[in-house]
């Protein structure tokens, strides 16, 4: 059966599909092309965004490192992303356990509630927090920023760890109890290891999502709490030199590292392939 299926796929792969192929090539060009040009421009010796680049130099990497708001922004971004990821998991994983193993009435309502922040446009969420918490209640910018990012990541934490919990056989836990393990031992010896890939996936996904976020970070920036993407955005809006291209190359390299880590942890396509479904 699997043999004949494999053969069926061989046949289809061989059939030429010119229209589909042209569209697919266009899709990859649009997704990847501009990023490649950014890399080229980052190494220019000239002082404007020109293509082809005028000569080769690393001067824009130096300029980026010397520009205070980028370094501050990087630090803020890392702190916020790490903090929000940890809090979202610390809050989300117990909630996931309660949702899936708690036998509570209205389970799906609770689950949808935990997934709901993702439904609201990020700018709208940001506005609500800005208006009500920062301006209305006078909470500090960094505090609200952290709350906002945590809310943004909570749905990922609940959904991704929940997915690995549904895949796991609930009989595993019952078997552990039957073999004489108490509830606490069962949790740490059975449930948590089962959840580990889900938690790892949610952590990587959450960190990346928070780090890259613009709308929340933009609306919730106080003095000195601009994140790196916001600092980059504001830089691009005011000047036209290639320093942001250099920062982009650094971020691109970091993303490749994250992708490799993700591949090692759980599988890259597994972690990020679930976003659209």
């Amino acid at each position, binding site marked *: 059966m699997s043999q004949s299926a494999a053969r069926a796929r061989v046949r289809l792969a061989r059939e030429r599909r010119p229209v589909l192929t042209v569209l697919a090539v266009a899709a990859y060009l649009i*997704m990847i092309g501009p990023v490649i040009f950014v890399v080229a421009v980052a190494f220019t010796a000239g002082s404007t965004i020109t293509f082809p680049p005028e000569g080769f130099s690393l001067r824009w990497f130096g300029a980026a490192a010397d520009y205070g708001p980028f370094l501050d922004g990087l630090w803020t971004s890392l702190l916020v992303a790490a903090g929000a990821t940890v809090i979202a998991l610390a809050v989300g994983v117990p909630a996931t356990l309660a949702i899936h193993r708690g036998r509570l009435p209205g389970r799906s309502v609770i689950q949808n509630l935990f997934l709901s922040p993702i439904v609201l446009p990020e700018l709208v969420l940001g506005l609500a927090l800005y208006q009500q918490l920062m301006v209305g209640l006078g909470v500090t910018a960094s505090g609200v920023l952290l709350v906002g990012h945590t809310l943004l990541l909570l749905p990922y934490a609940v959904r991704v760890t929940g997915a690995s919990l549904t895949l796991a056989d609930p009989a595993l836990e019952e078997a552990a109890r039957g073999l004489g393990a108490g509830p606490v031992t069962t949790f740490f010896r059975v449930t948590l290891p089962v959840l580990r890939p889900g938690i790892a996936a949610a952590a990587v996904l959450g960190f990346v999502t928070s780090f890259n976020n613009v709308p929340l970070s933009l609306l919730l920036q106080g003095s000195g709490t601009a994140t790196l993407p916001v600092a980059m955005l504001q830089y691009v809006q005011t000047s036209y030199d290639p320093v942001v291209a250099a920062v982009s190359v650094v971020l691109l390299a970091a993303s490749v590292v994250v992708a490799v880590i993700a591949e090692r942890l759980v599988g890259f396509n597994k972690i990020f392939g679930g976003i659209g479904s």
Partner: protein
Amino acid sequence: MSRRNAVLLLAPGLALLLFGFLLPSVMMLFHPPDTPPLDVGRRLGEMLTDPFMLKIIWRTLRIGLIVTAVCLLLGFPVAYLLARSTSRWSGLWLALAIFPLLLSNVVRTYGWLVVLGSKGVLAQALTGLGITDHPPQLLYTEAAVVAGLVQLFLPLVIVSCYSSLSGIDVRLEDAARGLGASRSATLRLVLLPLAMPGAVVGATLVFAGAATAYTTPVLLGGTRQMMLSLQLYNYSSVTIDWAGASAVAILMTVLVFAVAGASAWAGRKRVTV
């Protein structure tokens, strides 16, 4: 797990959602700071009769729909070829399609400044090939915004169509062909109806993202291509018009929900017929 323990495990999350999300969201509608009661409703009414705002709403809807259509048109073929590929490189191609999701929107959109800028790739290519001496304005056009948003959201469509398509048995296509259906008839009568759920999910995500995006429209469209998101930012952070910002937030949310509801309804209708 006892019910009491379950409630204890849920409590921190519920508290965060209640005080960090639900209350602020509701309060934003009824009670923005320094605003008389019901002012948000009044502003909303004004906006819906203001030609300038209506133009912005229409542009936001139009860009969202065009981006969604283009993403489906380009993303579905990628998803199909990946789902049916037996090449050992197909996993890598899939990863390449997903990888841009890791990259900041600022970085991805910045690429279009390099491509579409006045001394950018496209302008140089046009003059270099002698097609024109004075390249047309490429940035700050609706097309530029669409291009940037398509780049941003293609991975979402690819991923959701891919998961739909890879669940469709190849032999259904074989069966259709054997029964006399051409390739395009097979696509229309078998593949599309079966891939519809994934495509609808993908399309809904894309529309919601494209119609509410900020980074890309502000960099590639600027004030010449005002969208609701830009207007929201203006009200909340430039002119500090809280009621106006809340009203725009409502417009944006309703727009997204209306289109999501319509596409879910259309998708279901298509599948059950």
